């Protein structure tokens, strides 16, 4: 067998996968979005989407929530990743970080319901220190807290990898030239780990746009994201056309975010 045919044989499963689970659903989605609730061809759905205040608000809200979750995970992850890469047992920390991602998201969500509920340990603690019972579950706060917890490893891993990949002699050189820890972090480590930050943002922001389990279980359906809307249209209102339209909007948004985070202007600067 020559090289070319070996290659195409090996590629076949992947191509089949792409066709069945990526392109076919995408085409179906586009087809569905062009059907109204009575099964007639129309562009009514897309028009509705862009003229309805409800959908526009929901889109913006999704963006704000996803942005907020991303920002919080980034703020927590970067310093933590920086510190962890300098500790002695990097591999252990990395393992501890990966472990929770193996646990099903639903299980984690239910665990949080227990922790944050009226009779949960958090409220018991607040009671003990004299603050008293608080409604924590089913608030924006709890939604962002749990979403951040779940997304954290996906932000931290690429950042840790990026920091790890920085040639240690660059850090040495920076100190050699008179930069202290802080100046080295700002001038060398952060700029050189931006790739990891970008990957982290992609890995967190895009899925956060369509979180829907958490919105229900933790956010108590007060938070409606694009993901929730799609679920509702498919399973509750049975308006598949509208659901597909929102799906397509989501796919387009994802591509836009990916483009923005991939092609940030490269680092050629002139002498200042």
């Amino acid at each position: 067998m020559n090289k070319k045919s070996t290659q195409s044989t090996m590629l076949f499963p992947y191509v089949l996968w792409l066709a069945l689970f990526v392109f076919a659903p995408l085409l179906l989605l586009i087809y569905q979005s062009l059907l109204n609730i009575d099964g007639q061809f129309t562009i009514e759905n897309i028009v509705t989407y862009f003229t309805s205040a409800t959908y526009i608000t929901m889109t913006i809200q999704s963006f704000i929530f996803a942005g907020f979750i991303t920002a919080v995970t980034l703020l927590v992850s970067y310093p933590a990743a920086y510190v962890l890469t300098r500790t002695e047992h990097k591999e252990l920390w990395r393992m501890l970080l990966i472990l929770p991602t193996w646990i099903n998201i639903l299980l984690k969500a239910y665990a949080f319901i227990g922790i944050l509920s009226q009779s949960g340990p958090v409220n018991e603690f607040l009671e003990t220190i004299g603050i008293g019972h608080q409604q924590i579950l089913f608030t924006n706060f709890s939604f962002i807290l749990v979403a951040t917890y779940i997304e954290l490893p996906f932000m931290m891993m690429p950042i840790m990898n990026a920091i790890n990949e920085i040639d240690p002699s660059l850090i040495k050189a920076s100190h050699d030239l008179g930069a202290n820890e802080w100046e080295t972090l700002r001038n060398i480590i952060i700029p050189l780990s931006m790739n990891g930050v970008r990957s982290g943002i992609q890995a967190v922001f895009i899925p956060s746009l369509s979180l829907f389990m958490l919105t229900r279980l933790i956010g108590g359906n007060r938070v409606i994201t694009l993901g929730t809307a799609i679920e509702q249209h498919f399973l509750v209102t049975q308006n598949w056309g509208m659901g597909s339209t929102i799906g397509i909007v989501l796919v387009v948004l994802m591509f836009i975010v990916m483009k923005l985070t991939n092609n940030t202007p490269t680092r050629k600067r002139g002498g200042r």
Partner: protein
Amino acid sequence: MTETIVTFEKVRKEYDESTVLKEVSFQLEKGKFYTLLGPSGCGKTTILNLIAGFTEATVGNVLIDGKKVNEIPAHKRKVNTVFQDYALFPHMNVFDNVAFGLRMKKTPKAEIKTKVEEALGMVRLKEFANRSIVGMSGGQKQRVAIARALVNEPEVLLLDEPLSALDLKLRTDMQYELSELQKRLGITFLFVTHDQEEALAMSDEIFVMQDGAIVQKGTPNDIYDEPLNRYVAEFIGESNIVEGHMVSDYRVAFAGYEFDCIDGGIPSSETIDVIIRPEDLEITSADKGKFVAKVDTQLFRGVHYEIILYDQEGNEWMVHSTKKAKEGSTVGIDFDGASIHVMRKNESEADFYKRLDTYTEILEG
């Protein structure tokens, strides 16, 4: 008048159980070009790291400018390093790389510009200020790294095998440039290499290292002409080293004969190593030489022939000669008594130089 700039006082360095440097002591004087020469793993980089402040001595003191710096972090030392792999910041252009040190010192902008341009001029890269580091050749990167270090006007410049990644031609060019730069600026250079030719060509003084210790310090001439022992002699260049014994002062026996020499102060009949450089040996007819040997092979090396011969006792001899020899023929080998260098086994550097001093004085006096 010389001024000491770096001092090592019995410095030991250990990494969990393994001793990397054993009681190293030396002084570097202002404005000189020093070279640490030794095989890979002998502790050269460790010495640089101790001076730069990237690592701390387990025992002993490191002094810069007379002040103990053991606890002073790297970014506060007036020492700069040129790293083996250049370690240029890939996200900055040439100008920003060179300006980095000055910016950290909060130097005024206008001054930064002047100094960076001057430093780039020194390494002939003036036109490259706005170029990206990515895509520069090894030689260009090396020059940027040198400019980036020198622009800070350090008291000592540490260079860790800076030329080892360059090809031969470029390496020779850079050797000249570095030498000249050092003389012009008067900054103390501590240069690390495992290449003896490089060390001999550039240094005012060479420290030959072996297994975490400095075995011999001296000028290139000292070390080439009077190596302390077999290790130094073999490391510093091609030479003929054979075993022999002392007959009396100024009389040595090897290759089955006795010869006059200029070494003394060694108990008679002590077993010693004798070294004669290949360029000090001459091939003559069998009846004229000091001993006879049989030509085994020869290689044409451009400037000279490298001829390998064996004497009666089976010792191998290498001769550098401008004249061709005939393979398989028996010839005489001639040399001057002064080119015999006798090395005692296990002699310390201090004893060696002491003995050398007294006996060359007698000879000259």
